[in-house]
């Protein structure tokens, strides 16, 4: 209860203004973590934080960081006339947020100048690919820090770059991040046909979906709900 009141207070404090100011990335981060911490503590108090019914997948931040670093440098147009080159990546999975920080340079098309930028995002979607069952994450941008952004020669460069990245720019540049876990929605055993033996195939349909994601202690905790689905007609007993 107290956690919820404190969290509400923090949210109110940040968003109370009539004219939204350009809130610093660190403050945005602090507010979002405070929100998430309130949620995590409420779950911990109800003993449901680590409770799961089907499958739990835990992914370490170091693995995601290694994966991101393996594809750097990474560059491309991100919309709004901006071009971004990501040179390094860092991850920090704590206090409810799976933060991905991408450092590099941003430039504007047709201009030689560039500015050092840090793009802050958070993994906000974890899902299973509907075809392959591979677990994949998507990153949303929540802030950009830029040193000497005025050198880019456009008005409000940070705000415009943030908008460009938020509105599909980061997806163009990075896309989704797969983690090396696959949870299939079927369990199959092929048919067997020999002179002596005839066994029909088994094709067990499963209903699998990411149920909940928590972030703490340097890890992404993904709860996957899994249940045996209804038998297709072909699976029914023979007449």
């Amino acid at each position, binding site marked *: 209860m*107290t*956690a919820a*009141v*404190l*969290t*509400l*207070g923090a949210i*109110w*404090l940040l968003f109370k*203004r*009539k004219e939204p100011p350009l809130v610093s990335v660190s*403050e945005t981060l*602090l*507010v979002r973590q*405070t929100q998430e*911490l*309130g949620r995590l*503590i409420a779950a*911990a*108090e109800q003993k449901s*934080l*680590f409770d799961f019914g*089907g*499958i*739990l997948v*835990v*992914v*370490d931040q*170091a*693995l995601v960081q*290694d994966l*991101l670093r*393996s*594809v750097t440098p990474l560059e491309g147009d991100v919309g709004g006339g901006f071009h971004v080159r990501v040179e390094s990546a860092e991850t920090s999975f704590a*206090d409810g947020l799976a933060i991905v920080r991408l450092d590099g340079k941003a430039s504007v098309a047709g201009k030689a100048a560039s500015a050092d930028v840090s793009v802050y995002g958070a993994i906000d979607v974890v899902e299973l690919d509907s075809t392959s069952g*591979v677990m994949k994450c998507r990153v949303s941008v929540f802030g950009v820090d830029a040193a000497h952004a005025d050198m880019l020669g456009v008005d409000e460069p940070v705000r415009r770059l943030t908008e460009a990245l938020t509105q599909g720019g980061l997806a163009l*540049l*990075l*896309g*989704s*991040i*797969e*983690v*090396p876990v*696959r949870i*299939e929605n*079927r*369990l199959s*055993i092929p048919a*067997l046909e020999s002179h*002596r*033996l005839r*066994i*029909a195939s*088994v094709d*067990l349909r*499963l209903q699998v979906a990411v149920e909940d994601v928590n972030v703490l202690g340097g*890890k992404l905790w993904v709860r996957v709900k*899994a249940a*045996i689905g209804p038998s297709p007609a072909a699976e029914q007993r023979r007449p």
Partner: protein
Amino acid sequence: MTRCRRWWIAAGLFAAGFAGCHTAPGPEVEAARLASLHKIYDDLHGRLEKAVAEDALAKRVFADRGQVVVAIRSGLIEELAGTVAQRYLDRVSIDLTSVEASDEGAIHTNTFLGKMKVGEWAVDIDIADLRISLEAGKPKVSLRADDRVEVELPVDVKESEGRIGIHFSWNSKSLANLVCKDFDLTRDLRGRVLPQQHVLSGALRIGSAGDSFTLTPVFPDRKIPLKVDLTPSSWAAVEAALRTQNTADRCGTLIKPDNLVARLRELAAKGVRVGIPESVFRVARLPAHLEQAVKIGDRTVDLTVKSEGLMVLPQLLWTSASAHVRELAPPAP
């Protein structure tokens, strides 16, 4: 931080919020606001750390060396294993051709010299053409600590009919050998498998094969006593065949056809031990896998994924793996 103090901070935040609606905050107010936010954050962070430190599952995750942990509830494993076993063995058809069974015995009679063995008989049953169908019932399944899912699966054998060959032989002994001839009878008869239920007991051993988790059937005793019978007309044919030997020089009277038929019926009722072919028991893969390559956007990253262990814990199947980037595959042309 005491509960009362936290309430005061929260109240202060609200008050500061209302005040800010009317006036632009100065740097001192901003600093105070951020300081309050940090205090709230620190307090919540400390509480979460304490909650996490007390949780057994979280402690196990943090103690694990793997970068990826996959834990599956025993209930799900049991449900999967049971359902797969049931559906798999629910639609099995086995050809029993060439399955054989045999029995033998000796016949003694009282003579003026005392009790004497007059001969030995043997019967060989050879299934010529008979196929059985299995239907599985609801299994009993339980995950055991030694990486095995124990399974007890009731299996119904459906009634079916086919051809059964019977070969009967008589070998006279001792004095009877002087007057009685040996003989052999072979008949091709109609037989049937009676409807019956058996329980297959065994286990599915959980293992990891490369990047996937497997369930390997371990059923040491694959033989079931299959109860068979002859059709009434076939029994009549057997009895008639034995009676054809009921002549003075063949000693059919010593054999007593009625008794021998009764013995054969006992043999059929006891069941012919039929082994379920080993190829029935196949490995199934659990639907959770570790991948050796992933995609980041449109780039493929090859990984070296090494299992850090697989164990059955109370209520859980636990596995973890370390994964290292091996190389970045060249971008697609």
